[in-house]
């Protein structure tokens, strides 16, 4: 207990940083669920592909840490765009391959879940086998820096050096901490505004509320669904870069656990609720850290899942309720 109190600030900040990543990934689950009432099981792989895109940008540019600030910012922005583009692209492919046909057939939700699980396996294994696939096409040597040790952790050479900015409560908050939390909040606000104010945003809300009525009102449902996947993918791409800045490595199966946690965060906040996703992420990140501090890190996941069960028992639709379609947000 005293450990928790003594290190409260540190545990809070690192918990919020983790929570920000959870929240951004959770947005993908929440958006798709809000519009289609489907659990997009393969969203974790969308995130994973984005993280590799960011890594490959830094590998290709080969920037050493401690470069001039404009270079650092340039590389990070490039990595961000690459991650967003790849994640967005994978999300679109996923929609096309795993979902579109089933949505058109109005197949049971469970079948879409299995389709997504299959896609998730295939995507993760594809990344884990990238060295063998390169081999197959005779590109093993050309692509070596990108495909080597495919089953191992791959490091992200962060061009930005971690530096302390200010100290509070015995913990020095670093520039990376601030960047992650602030960007997550900014992206959240941007997404919220996007859904509220743009044409596509109101389309998303309309389809979420009543897909048939929306279609009658002239909303192109398929376009809205594509836009939803794309936006979720872009958010996952951003989350991938932020994750790499904090944790520094990714691997072919890193998406699985993160995906489970992010989905938990989405449910915690109220699945289908955009603001709830970020709130759920923050709460989950904090709960994991406080829980670990109190009873040991081995119980970290147990704390996370117990919290989820307890919250659902008292608020059966999550903290903020399901509301992508309802009300104003």
């Amino acid at each position, binding site marked *: 207990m005293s*450990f928790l109190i*003594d*290190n409260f600030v*540190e*545990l809070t900040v*690192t*918990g919020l*940083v*983790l929570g920000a990543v959870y929240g951004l990934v959770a947005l993908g689950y929440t958006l798709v669920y809000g519009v289609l009432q489907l659990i997009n099981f393969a969203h974790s792989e969308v995130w994973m592909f984005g993280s590799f895109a960011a890594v490959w940008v830094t590998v290709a540019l080969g920037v050493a840490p401690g470069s001039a600030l404009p270079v650092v910012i340039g590389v990070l922005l490039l990595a961000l765009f690459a991650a967003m583009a790849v994640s967005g692209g994978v999300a679109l492919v996923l929609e096309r391959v795993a979902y579109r046909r089933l949505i058109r057939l109005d197949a049971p939700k469970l079948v879409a879940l299995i389709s997504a699980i299959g896609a998730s396996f295939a995507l993760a294994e594809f990344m884990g086998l990238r060295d063998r696939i390169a081999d197959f096409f005779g590109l093993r040597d050309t692509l070596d820096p990108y495909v080597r*040790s495919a*089953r*191992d*952790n*791959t*490091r992200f*050479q962060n061009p930005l050096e*971690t530096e*302390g900015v200010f100290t509070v409560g015995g913990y*020095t908050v*670093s520039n990376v901490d601030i960047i992650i939390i602030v960007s997550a909040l900014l992206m959240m606000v941007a997404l919220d505004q996007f859904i509220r104010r743009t044409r596509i945003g109101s389309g998303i809300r309309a389809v979420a509320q009543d897909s048939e009525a929306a279609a009658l009102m002239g909303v192109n449902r398929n376009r809205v669904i594509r836009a939803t996947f794309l936006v979720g993918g872009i958010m996952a791409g951003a989350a991938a870069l932020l994750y790499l800045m904090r*944790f*520094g*490595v990714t*691997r072919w*199966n*890193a998406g699985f*656990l*993160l995906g489970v946690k992010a989905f938990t965060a989405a449910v915690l906040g109220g699945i289908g609720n955009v603001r709830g996703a970020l709130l759920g992420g923050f709460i989950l990140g904090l709960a*994991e*850290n406080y829980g*670990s*501090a109190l009873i*040991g*890190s*081995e119980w*970290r*996941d147990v704390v996370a899942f117990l919290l989820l069960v307890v919250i659902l028992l008292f608020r059966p639709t999550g903290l903020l309720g399901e509301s992508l379609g309802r009300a104003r947000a």
Partner: protein
Amino acid sequence: MRFSVKTGAPLLALALALSACGTSGGDDEEASGGGSEAGTCEDVAIGFFGALTGSDANLGINIRNGVELAVDQFNEENADCQVELKEYDSQGAPDQATGLATQAVGDDTVIGLVGPAFSGESDAVGPTFAEEGLPTITASATNPALAENGWDTFQRILGNDASQGPAAAAYIGDVLKSESVFVVDDASAYGKGLADIVNESLADAVVGQDTIQKGQTDFSATVTAIRSANADAVFFGGYYAEAGLLVQQLRGAGVDATFVAADGVKDAGFIEAAGDASEGAIITCPCLPPEESQAFADDFEAAYGTAPGTYAAEAFDAANVFLEGILDGNTDRESLLEWVNNYEGDGVTKSIKFDESGEVENISVWAYKVENGEIVADQEIETN
């Protein structure tokens, strides 16, 4: 029905041919390279048992490559005695291991087995090998309890956790002269076993401990605990994937305590994942430095394009114990088991002789250090 059986026959033959190709990588080379007459060791194979796919595949592939190198070299030197290598890919999972073990003991050509690679699967299939008298030499399963089951067929060609743990503790106490040690483990049988031994040996100096889970990536609560405990050394019991992440997050949080880990971390993947943060990390290993076995390291690099990873050298030695026995004319399980039990000889990692329980005698534990992105030998650790 009958019709399908008729048309099935050629298909069936095709399938059999295909499956025969699929079983082992060594097949083709032997057929062409040997051109062997029917020698004394016709239809003799040794097996590899461990993970070749799945999340623990890296370690298994290291070991397989070590065994394969030994078999290939042997077959090249002995044209009239061609030994086949059969692979049993358990994915490190005890439930898959059971069927593979039954398959291995049911295949009369397999007279020796390098593996099983992990302690968990060893526990699951040890009784099968013991009952059927198939000699095994594990090159990586280090749980001390494995040798206490009374399995005659069990041999271990490296020091177990009970020898490595005290060595790691001795290094922390005598060489680093650390007075505040934080012990972290990954809840695996291997990691927890080591951490418990270190905990016990260093009792007074341990200022705190925590357990993480394999597969996790965020260790912030653990890092906070280490930082606030003001530890000057951190012992980590676990594998390189989590070790890389942990040391990186430690350095990121400004903790510069010496990072000490055991042989599960002795892999290029550790440095690959941790980068500069791995500098100065200490890794204990019951294995001789590669300078002592340069020829092996060179051959390995020539064959696989990478430096030998963790346990590749042990696997090479284990395979050679069997191969020498086969060359000596021990081409059935019973005589090969006797050969292994009485074996005395020098391998690339150590001089090999197994005691009653199957443990190798003369274990020397070395400390390695990460310097300029390479794992280099530091010194031999004296324990008393």
